[in-house]
């Protein structure tokens, strides 16, 4: 008889600042408890680059909104391989700070940054084929794929992430009481 497989978690930061990942690490010693229950698939924490090569993934945690073509690709890959997809943090939930460019024209923004703004190098708008193309607007991830759970906060506190994950791992619908649910 084989031992029960550990729950497999993958994470990614799209148009985010990695603050939510820092908050995940901020659960401190509870990481050891978590690692008894889970193993990590693709995530910046393990540096595993491809998703799903170790088998199906149970939980995908997405930090950040969708601001460029690569974000769309990564997000769709996560949706395809993860049974449960979670929008982790304000940017994944509502676009967050990057989405504050949405009322501006993308061409004007790039022109301002790379051509006209005083004090910059005026090196021209980068067009290296390695760079993913920016989208006209930054989108919350639920506007691109089906999302199962939302964990707001900028970032969600370590306690909020811990409560959320332990609820989920115990088979409960995650519930954040007052003090753990935050939009800021």
């Amino acid at each position, binding site marked *: 008889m084989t031992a029960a497989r550990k729950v497999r978690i993958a994470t990614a930061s799209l148009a985010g600042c990695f603050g939510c990942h820092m908050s995940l690490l901020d659960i401190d010693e509870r990481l050891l408890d978590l690692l008894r229950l889970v193993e990590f698939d693709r995530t910046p924490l393990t540096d595993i680059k491809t998703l799903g090569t170790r088998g199906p993934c149970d939980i995908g945690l997405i930090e950040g909104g969708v601001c460029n073509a690569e974000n769309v690709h990564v997000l769709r890959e996560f949706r395809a391989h993860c049974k449960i997809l979670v929008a982790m943090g304000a940017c994944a939930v*509502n676009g967050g700070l990057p989405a504050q460019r949405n*009322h501006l024209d993308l061409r004007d923004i790039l022109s301002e940054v790379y051509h006209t703004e005083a004090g910059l190098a005026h090196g021209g708008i980068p067009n290296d084929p390695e760079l993913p193309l920016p989208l006209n607007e930054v989108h*919350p991830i639920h*506007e691109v794929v089906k999302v199962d*759970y939302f964990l707001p906060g900028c970032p969600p506190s370590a306690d909020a992430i811990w409560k959320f994950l332990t609820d989920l791992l115990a088979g409960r619908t995650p519930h*954040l009481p*007052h003090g753990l649910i935050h939009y*800021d």
Partner: protein
Amino acid sequence: MSEQTFTLDGQEIPFATGQSVMQAALSAGVFIPHLCYHPEFRPHGSCKLCTVKINGRPATSCTTPAAAGLEVESDTQEILDKRRTLLQMLLVEGNHFCPSCEKSGHCKLQALGYELGVMTPHFNHFYPDRPVDASHPDVLLDFNRCILCELCIRASAEVDGKNVFALAGRGIGKHLIVNAESGKLGDTDFALTDKAAQVCPVGVILAKRQGFAVPIGQRRFDAAPISAHVDEFRPVAPQAGGKP
């Protein structure tokens, strides 16, 4: 004279003649979510968050006069779901970025989101292009967060006697404007001491040079949810209920 009562989620609520269902509930210490209601102003009935079922029919509790024997439902799954949807529609219609908002922690829209467990805006965001007005020496206007509750309009007209604010446009084009030829707050006689500067439930009317002065953890709704602040919303004096 025997006390007049109605029932709210099965609880007997006493009321005085002329009180609305909302006023009677708040007086009895029962919180009903609301944004455009303010204890010092006539009811407005526009945000619809205080919608309850009265004898089986939906009605805004802030504009419905209390009457003996009414059966009012408020804390039910059906009503709570509708309130969550209303909040979600408000959140996507404006630009509500809490992390960079000075009102965060003091904001009633945000506090009601927490109260009702709104985890996602659900709908597609509008990301409207709305201006800010920094022309006034003491006050910043950030129209991105306006929910059209008209509290500043009512306060400026009824208390301050200045008529600084108004709504213009119709439907989705409706927006808050400043009554000045230039449209700028700096060209009005608006003052930070005006009642209208104190009543915004969200982060539109902000005092300059005070942002983020209160640390996280000590802000208005940090320690306890908005429903625990019910005392702050009790009617301040007997006033006429019913339609404004």
